[in-house]
């Protein structure tokens, strides 16, 4: 067989000694031939490329591991699946089967949860924008509404009047836990006394009953201690509210924000080293509970974890469409999946795995998406061996946020499949076609091209 011609380039040689890439960068490569015993070849053959693949096994294992970490430390724990992280019905259903309730932040998500069969009383309704109509629907179906601002108190009092009964609600809080940036735009501030004032206002109104507190200190929090501070402040406030206004605080919702094992751009250490184990978070949170709870009191601890549950269960299979050599000598590949369907590429440096054994020395490479846009870069600097056209790269972890934040931009969104625990592969979202894109589009008659020409 004739060797393929390539323009010669000069590469700096590095020894196998200590260096920032770990051991032997020239020949180390990650190979993945299948996901949950289903081969990549079969998947692509049947469902095309690019292709999102979710592993049911990983989803369940991850949920159980995280659930066990908390439930074996605190006797009253509930997980709420954060819909915005991934609201494909199949994914939500897996978590609901495992016992999670739903956490939604919009009327659309609320409707999605209801359609999936989640009863109203198992839905937490969060977010700074809830229309009066949405509030009324949620309240009448028994949803747990978390109040974000004073105006929402007025709205809910209106709903209470209309329904002719008192409504149980929770207060969303924000506070300084030592994490920067401090998320202070949601809920009522604890440190300034705003939260207590809101409670007083609610008590005074006499139409709402505070039965829970909620706070979400941020996202991708790498410092477990921050949650300890959060829990302490929340429980102190809870008892203050109980003592002063005689409300019974039934649950403490500490939000989510646990990181997944993904590498943030600009970080040096690998996530295995930089991301604390879920047990560390559980330990800090539950010890803060034991330290601050009154004897015999076990309010429900609610966690709204999203990313940490789902991220590692998602893979994106892409195929190399072409390669080129950049002016600076780096190798560049164009693959069939771009930032439009891989939103998290803006802040993650993904793990790239190759679907087969490949010969040759690794070289600095760039992976571009297929869009005709300069920003469409999947990885701007990685070490890859020379890859032929048609080779597949498996990008992970991609389970969180991508299938909710993705854009339909100049192309169709691909199939999403789930490799089931039973070994079966199911399509959980079909690839789009032109009909999907144009279904809602209308062309006024006078603009019809055929009519113009006639």
């Amino acid at each position, binding site marked *: 067989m004739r060797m393929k011609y390539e323009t010669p380039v000069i590469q700096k040689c590095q020894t196998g000694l200590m260096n920032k890439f770990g051991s032997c960068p020239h020949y180390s490569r990650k190979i993945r031939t299948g996901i949950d015993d289903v081969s990549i070849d079969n998947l692509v053959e049947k469902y095309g490329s690019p292709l999102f693949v979710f592993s049911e096994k990983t989803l369940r294992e991850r949920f*159980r591991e995280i659930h*066990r970490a908390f*439930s*074996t*430390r*605190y*006797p*009253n*724990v509930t997980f709420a699946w954060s819909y915005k992280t991934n609201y494909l019905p199949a994914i939500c259903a897996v978590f609901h089967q495992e*016992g999670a309730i739903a956490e939604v932040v919009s009327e659309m998500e609320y409707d999605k949860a209801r359609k999936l069969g989640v*009863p109203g*009383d*198992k839905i937490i309704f969060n977010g700074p924008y809830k229309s009066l109509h949405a509030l009324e629907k949620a309240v009448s179906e*028994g949803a747990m509404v978390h109040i974000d601002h004073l105006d929402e108190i007025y709205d809910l009092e209106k709903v209470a009047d209309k329904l*002719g*009964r*008192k409504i*149980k609600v929770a207060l969303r809080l924000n506070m300084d836990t030592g994490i920067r940036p401090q998320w202070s735009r949601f809920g009522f501030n604890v440190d300034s006394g705003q939260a207590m004032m809101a409670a007083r206002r609610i008590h005074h109104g006499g139409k709402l*009953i505070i*039965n829970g507190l909620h706070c979400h200190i941020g996202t991708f929090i790498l410092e477990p201690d921050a949650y300890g501070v959060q829990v302490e402040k929340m429980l102190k406030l809870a008892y203050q509210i109980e003592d002063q206004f005689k409300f*019974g*605080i*039934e*649950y403490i919702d500490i939000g989510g924000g646990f990181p997944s094992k993904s590498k943030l751009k600009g970080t040096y250490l690998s996530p295995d080293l930089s991301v604390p184990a879920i047990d560390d978070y559980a*330990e800090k949170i*539950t*010890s803060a509970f*034991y330290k601050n709870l009154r*004897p*015999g*009191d*076990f*309010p*429900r601890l609610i966690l709204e974890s999203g990313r940490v549950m789902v991220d590692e269960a998602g893979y994106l299979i892409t195929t190399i469409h072409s390669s080129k050599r950049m002016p600076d000598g780096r190798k560049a590949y164009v693959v069939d999946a771009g930032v439009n369907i891989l939103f998290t590429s803006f802040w993650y440096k993904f793990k790239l795995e190759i679907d087969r054994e490949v010969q040759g020395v690794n070289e600095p490479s760039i992976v571009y998406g297929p869009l005709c846009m300069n920003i469409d870069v999947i990885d701007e600097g990685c070490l890859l061996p020379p890859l032929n056209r048609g080779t597949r790269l498996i990008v992970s972890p991609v389970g969180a946020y991508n299938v909710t934040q993705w854009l339909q931009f100049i192309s169709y969104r691909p199939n999403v499949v789930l490799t089931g625990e039973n070994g079966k592969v199911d399509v959980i979202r079909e690839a789009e076609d032109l009909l999907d894109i144009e279904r809602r589009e209308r062309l006024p008659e006078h603009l019809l091209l055929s009519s113009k020409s006639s």
Partner: protein
Amino acid sequence: MLSLSLRNSRAKNDRAISNIDFSKIKSQIALYTDAIFKSYSEIFFLRSRTVGILLFLTTLLNPHLAISGIISVLAAYIFARLINMDQKFVNSGFYTYNPLLTGLAIGYLFRINLLTVFFIMSAGILTFILTVMLSSLFSTYFKLPILSLPFTLISSVTYLASSKYTNLFVTGLYPNLTPGILFFENYFPFWLAGYFRSLGTIFFLPYVIPGIILAVAILSSSRILFLLTILGYYTGTIFTGMLMGSYHNAFMDINHFNYILIAMAIGGIFLIPSIKSYILAIIAVAVSTLLVKSMEVFWLNYGIPGFTLPFNLVTLSLIYVLGLVNYPMVAKLIKSTPEETLDQYLSNLGRYGGTKRTLSLPFSGKWMVWQAFDGRWTHKGSLKYAYDFIITDDQDKSHNNNGTNLTDYYSFHKPVLSPVRGRVAKVVNSLPDNPIGQVDRTHVWGNSVIIEDERGFYVAISHLSRDLIKVREGDWVERGTLLGSCGNSGYSPQPHIHIQAQVSIEIGSSTLPFSFVSYSTETRFYDNDLPTENTAVESLYQDKCLDIITSFMLDDRLTYNVIKDGQKTGEITIIIKSAPDGTFYMDSGKGKLYFGKYEGTFYIYSYEGRDENLKSIFLALPKLPLAYKDGLKWEDRIPVDIVATGFKKRIVQFLSSVYGNLARTSCTFAFLNNKTIEGNVSARILNIEKKTRVELDDYVGFKSIKVDNLELRRVKNEQVRG
């Protein structure tokens, strides 16, 4: 009945303030008559006003007798009011049936005139004083009732005294034969007439006619008691007859009423009615024949009949001995009839398992029972009452990786929570966690915390991790207080929690049986039980939301529309009240439903009165876990009295004394969601199959209770908190 009229009168007071005096007088009269009639039925161990009235009317067969009895009770009653005795106790009839018997005894001998009235009154008061005193002494020192001992003593005393009261004899003595009372005497065979006569003698009417009336009264109230009167009488009499050689004479002896009383007391009242209690009753009767005859010989020398002395002696001695040997079938709660006592006992047997040493599981989440009581490795001999727990994963492994490091084990460093409330009595906190593969044979128990439970035992938790123990000796801990972390100190091949109840503060002292409260295996809830080895159990700590919903407060009023087949048929208001013993109950005006919370479970304990609506609440929610888990299921067994009515119920309750599981109700309940509970109540023999559904309110109590086509739907009521 008494409480019913009490409440009725109270309700009337509330309604008609202008009529307050009238209703007060009326209620007072109701109270007095109630107390008097109850004294009559108490003689047959019954607490029914109706039976009391019937018995009173029977005594009217001899007016002197009847009036004498009434005078004696009234004298005692007025005396009790004079010395400010608590009305509640006097009204029960418990203290006044002895004076009544004394009155009857005197009336049997003397006709009513001014002189005898004084005589009766003084005897009545004396009996009453003796009753109060003896009953206090007996219950304090012997844990025994006094039965009719005061009556026997005082009647003997009055009979003795009267022999010296010549004046009384001259004016009072009369032939107490009411005309016509002997009418039936010769129409019955001697063995039947003897039974009726003996029965009549209990009310000093040793004739067939009153005997028949009394037999009917007993039969109508309790089939079990009626059976026992027959068993007792014929056992005793036939036995005596054999010894005497003349059955005719034996059946003529009216003193054989003692056999009837003994059989009733032993077989149906103080023991749970069962084959065994019937056998014990027969034995008691057989041994009492000695006493009856010897007494006749001895006592008659002094001109006194001996009254109920044999009954008192035999019954009291036997109950005392049964109590001494901790005989399990001694009735702890004596209801108004043996049938009810039995029903309650059987239902309690099915409802409340476990022991009284109730512990919460000492951890959070789902753990596996590694070793239970009488385990295969170390829980043996005096150390057999202990449990070991570990955490396992879906593959039943207790560790991830290869399990060579302590940190591989899921249980390692998981929180250990206090299973009881009490004071920390001892803490050992000096031993290292052994690496996997090594055990500490010297300090077998490892680091331990020993808690002294208020109820008089100790709980030890062992193999904790050094330096992570959070409590010190002398600390007060509640259920669920963090004690420390699971470790691998002591004789521990892998990190686990060892827990035992024990007799003393010492490490390794003898263990005691105990049970766990409020836990689940998969989706099955257990309120008080023992999980078996290799089952995964999850501790359920009280959920604040359910706790708040079931926190009724005194004077809470809950109004419900009663809806039958979709049509409103009425309305009931339930008021939360508290009984003298501190138990809370729901009062609907027509009945009472006793309820309470015990270690993580809400229970409806018992029901009394006549209110189908309250019964349906019992039926739909006899037990409610105060912790929520999706699909959580539980079982229960409710009394036959709640599900069945009429003739069928009576037959089944009677036969239950022979075969306890005959009318077993099988009740299963499950959470449909955190506000809805669906249940199924069935009893095969009764051909009952009921579907129940309860919707809990958002704030307090239930929004709706549904049993088949009957629904109670809450009416918005401003008098409820929330």
